[in-house]
């Protein structure tokens, strides 16, 4: 520990020099995005180097770079406490602790997973991030497992990360997610007789295409739409599958393809003058700060004969039904006429036979009214 304290003081002295250097290369300080990107690149490179060289890396120069990066990004109100470098075997990422910067563009989020008491199970959480974020992941154990304190490990993929925060029964790590390499799965595991773990999946937002194929006809126009709900992508790109490869659709082919966006979250691809060859798979890709996300759409181009057959079948059926109904009506009318003639004949006969009684009956009936 005393050694690292000395190291700290050395770092602090070096700060102003490095500040200047970074300031010159980073472009206008008013452009936080650019700064962040530069910083993230250098940080990324440092991190990857650290991951690559597991055993032999000396943390100190790397952490210097890290510190400097954060210094240029953050505002002057940032209070930096430099973390301790780890002396444990294997490589550990030193993560820095810092307070929330109110003037910063980067958001700070905290996610917590509650570890279940059942062994062999794992809790999974999907976290969707579309822009650079500071994130704190923590795992909390039930009080009855407090005897397992010292055996909680955090991992990214297969590499172990040292936790920063430890309260009574929760362990957490803080991460700066600045580009796609930081994304992935982070897990915390409690090792004992039982294996209890929680996994955090950091992902880019998913975009919606259409699962069912879009059906259109030769010579017609087809419109394909992709939507990103909630998160605004930086750019949209469309790909068409040609054989086994995917070709990006160039907006220059204006007679065939028209790419338009009604809003930043929605993109349309209009294909004009469809032919059979346009049948196939299309991909729309949304580029976010932290990666790309794709969705698949399928287009089917039919000829006009396809719906024509059911159409003709149904029309024929309707005509046949109408004809049958009319024929039945003519037939039943003929039957009715025959029956009526017979009935009339009978009635006249009846009247003739009931002559005198009939007159009295009818008048009596009428008077009753």
């Amino acid at each position, binding site marked *: 520990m005393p050694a690292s304290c000395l190291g700290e003081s050395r770092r602090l002295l070096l700060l102003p020099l490095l500040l200047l250097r970074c300031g010159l290369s980073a472009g206008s300080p008013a452009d936080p995005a650019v700064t962040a990107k530069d910083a993230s690149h250098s940080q990324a490179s440092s991190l990857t180097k650290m991951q690559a060289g597991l055993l032999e890396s000396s943390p100190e120069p790397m952490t210097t770079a890290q510190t400097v990066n954060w210094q240029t990004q953050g505002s002057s109100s940032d209070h930096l406490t430099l973390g301790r470098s780890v002396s444990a075997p294997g490589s550990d990422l030193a993560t820095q602790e810092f307070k929330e910067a109110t003037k910063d563009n980067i958001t700070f989020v905290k996610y917590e997973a509650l570890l279940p008491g059942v062994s062999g199970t794992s809790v999974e959480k999907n976290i969707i991030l579309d822009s650079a974020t500071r994130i704190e992941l923590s795992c909390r154990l039930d009080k009855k497992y407090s005897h397992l304190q010292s055996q909680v490990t955090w991992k990214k993929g297969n590499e172990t990360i040292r936790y920063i925060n430890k309260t009574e029964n929760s362990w957490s790590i803080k991460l700066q997610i600045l580009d796609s390499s930081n994304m992935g799965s982070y897990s915390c595991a409690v090792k004992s007789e039982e294996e209890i773990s929680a996994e955090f999946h950091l992902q880019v937002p998913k975009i919606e295409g259409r699962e069912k194929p879009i059906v259109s006809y030769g010579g017609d126009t087809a419109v394909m739409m992709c939507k990103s709900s909630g998160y605004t992508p930086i750019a949209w790109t469309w790909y068409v599958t040609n054989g086994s490869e995917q070709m990006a659709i160039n907006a220059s082919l204006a007679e065939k393809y028209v790419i338009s966006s009604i809003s930043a979250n929605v993109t349309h691809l209009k294909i004009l003058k469809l032919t059979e060859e346009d049948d196939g798979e299309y991909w729309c890709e949304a580029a976010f700060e932290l990666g790309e996300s794709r969705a698949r759409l399928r287009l089917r181009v039919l000829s006009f004969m396809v719906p024509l057959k059911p159409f*003709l079948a149904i029309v024929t059926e309707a005509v046949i039904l109408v004809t049958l109904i009319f024929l039945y009506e003519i037939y039943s009318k003929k039957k009715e006429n025959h029956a009526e003639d017979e009935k009339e004949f009978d009635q006249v006969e009846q009247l003739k036979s009931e002559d005198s009684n009939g007159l009295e009956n009818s008048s009596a009936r*009428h008077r009753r009214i």
Partner: protein
Amino acid sequence: MTVRERKVVFALKLVLTMSPPVSSDLGYIPPDGGWGWAVVFGASISVGFAYTFPKAFTIYFKELQAVYSISYSQIAWITSIMCATTYGGGPISSILVNRYGSRPVVMFGGLLCGIGMVSAAFCTSILQLYICVGFITGFGLALNLQPSVIIIGKYFLKRRPIANGLAMAGSPVMLCTLAPLNQFLFDNFGWRGSFLILGAILLHCCVAGALFRPIGADTASVKMQKIEEGKETLKEEVTKDAMEMSSPANVPMETKMEEEGEKDCCEKINQYLDFSLFKHRGFLIYLIGNVLMFLGFFAPIVFLAPYAKHIGIDEYSAAFLLSILAIVDMIARPTTGIIANSKWVRPRIQYFFSFSIAFNGACHLLCPLASGYTGLVVYSVFFGLAFGMVCAMLFETLMDLVGAARFTSAVGLVTIAECCTILLGPPIGGTLIDTFGDYKYMFIKCGAVMVLAGTFLFIMNYYNYRMLTKEEKERKAKEEDPKSVRTENEGRNNWNKEATQGGPELEPLREEQEGLKKEVNGTNEV
């Protein structure tokens, strides 16, 4: 007995045992069965298409929006135009039915629907879609809806509420079949192919129309001939008794001849579309009550699924609510028909109608209290029940008030008046939702409007029933007085006055036990 006397007896028997030319309004006794059930089946198909086609059409909106790059409100105009034309085309429909009868009109309507949808399959702009789907198909559906309802009144009298209930039950059945069918067609054939095939499916309206065998004209003309023969023989024997006995038969003959003599402009128009209905008390009550009711009738259905999604229910469960509604509706309509036909309810059917409207309103008022999915399911069940009850009796009550002969014109006039409020209802609800950000005000508005309409109808129909019984008594008093029967003019005037007042067929139904003749005379008096 002399030959003459025999002929008199024969004529009398014909007149008194068969249907006389004048009875209620129809001129014959409706069969109440037989081919009538085939007509009900055809009517349910027609009515089903007319009511559910606009609703089932909404599946295509998303795709059409994307293809033509238009907003939702622009695409929603298609169904608005369709609904407006279906209801607004009512008077034209009535005029055509008055002139040509139901069958040719329905078949032409079916053809028009088919042509509209087939031409819509080849449309290249949204304006063309408005015309093809909106106007042409909408007008075709109008030519389907009114004649189907009219012909039920011609085929049924005693069992008319059941027939009406069954015919109106076609609407939810058709909705349950059309909606998944539309989805299937759209997935397999895209929107153009679907329109083409829907055009073919709509041709089945022609099939339904073929079932509408004309009645009244055919059978009545044959009997008219025989009665004319009888009339001639009676005229030869100028005796007071013979005159008295045959006056019911004579009166319409002479009235008709007089009518032919003095056909002025008003009467000519009234022959096609009976504007004199506006002097009819019952008709006016029905008109005002229904116009008010439709302001809050359709909006809750339109907004039920969005409301469900708003309070956090997922899309499929929200759609399932509508299915529950349709299924309950399907069962409620024929059941209401059966109940309305029972001897306790039929004489007071207007009260039953007002009660069902108020019940509907009460459901809407209680809806905001429903919390969670179970609450909404309960609401859907009661709403489906109330909706079915109102729809089943919608046309039955009008027929009951104005009588079957004038119903042709009445239905046309009523639908064009309702057209405005039907179209205004959902947008007003939508504005309420947008302004307050909360769905409960829309439900409260709909509920309040319907409860108000129900109460209005209840009170006014109570007044109407009282007036009718009073007029009944006056009429009976006059008829028992022998002096009035002698003067044909007075008798004819009474008959005319009664015809204008119309009135429910209470008489024949109350005294059914006395047999057919009593019923004939009873409707005569009406």
